[in-house]
């Protein structure tokens, strides 16, 4: 029984924006996303990604077998207030991996 791999989430978004600006958010996490459909390795899959801003969900994604390894997303958010983004990836086994970033307005 090997120790499960702990992935490192990475996000790229501006640290400041003007009120109403569009912010481009890019995310990446290192994860093999093993479906175990055609390999003898045990299944090792993320189940869900969620981005929230000041506690409200901005976008989420449910992973299925056809999602690629090292999942990456790009999306566009409106900067309507200063606050904190939280990005969370949840594994099918219940573990979750998060990273945060604040955005200033002005």
């Amino acid at each position: 029984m090997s120790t499960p791999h702990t992935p490192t989430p990475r996000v790229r978004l501006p640290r400041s924006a003007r009120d109403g600006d569009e912010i481009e958010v890019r995310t990446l996490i290192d994860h093999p996303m093993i479906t175990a459909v055609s390999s003898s390795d045990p299944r090792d899959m993320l189940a869900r990604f969620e981005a929230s801003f000041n506690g409200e969900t901005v976008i989420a994604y449910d992973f299925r077998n056809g999602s690629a390894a090292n999942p990456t997303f790009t999306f566009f958010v409106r900067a309507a207030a200063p606050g904190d983004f939280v990005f969370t990836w949840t594994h099918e086994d219940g573990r979750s991996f998060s990273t945060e970033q604040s955005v200033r307005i002005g």
Partner: protein
Amino acid sequence: MTLLRRTFIKGAAGTAALLVLLPVPVSATTLNPDVAAALDDILDGRTAQETGIEIDAPTVAENGAQVPLTIRVDSPMTAEDHVTAIHILATQNPAPGIGSFHLTPHLTRAEVFTRIRLAEAQEFLVLAELSDGRVLQAAARANVSLGGCAT
């Protein structure tokens, strides 16, 4: 000389245009029972309209394990009128599910980028659920040089 230049420009424009896939009607796609069931789950009795979705992906994916995919849905993304979900289904993978986005009006546009797995050359389906209950759908065909479902 002029003719040559024109031919070249036409050729170059043609190459660029290949990146935006021409939608294939979903109705013209033969669906196996698993894919048809996954589609029915999303539609939940509704009929999808074949409009309003742009799919941007390579027509020939070098590596089926990492196929870049941009999806754009025509939507103002306001509280009253926005895309609530975007579902991606494979027609020839071992399992039809690729993934589902859940969108909110905090997004400025209904545009997302991710990477998907395609086991072989195939059509994949994109369905967009709207806040008024309507569903849009589109399909695109991608060829695959190296199959992408070895894991």
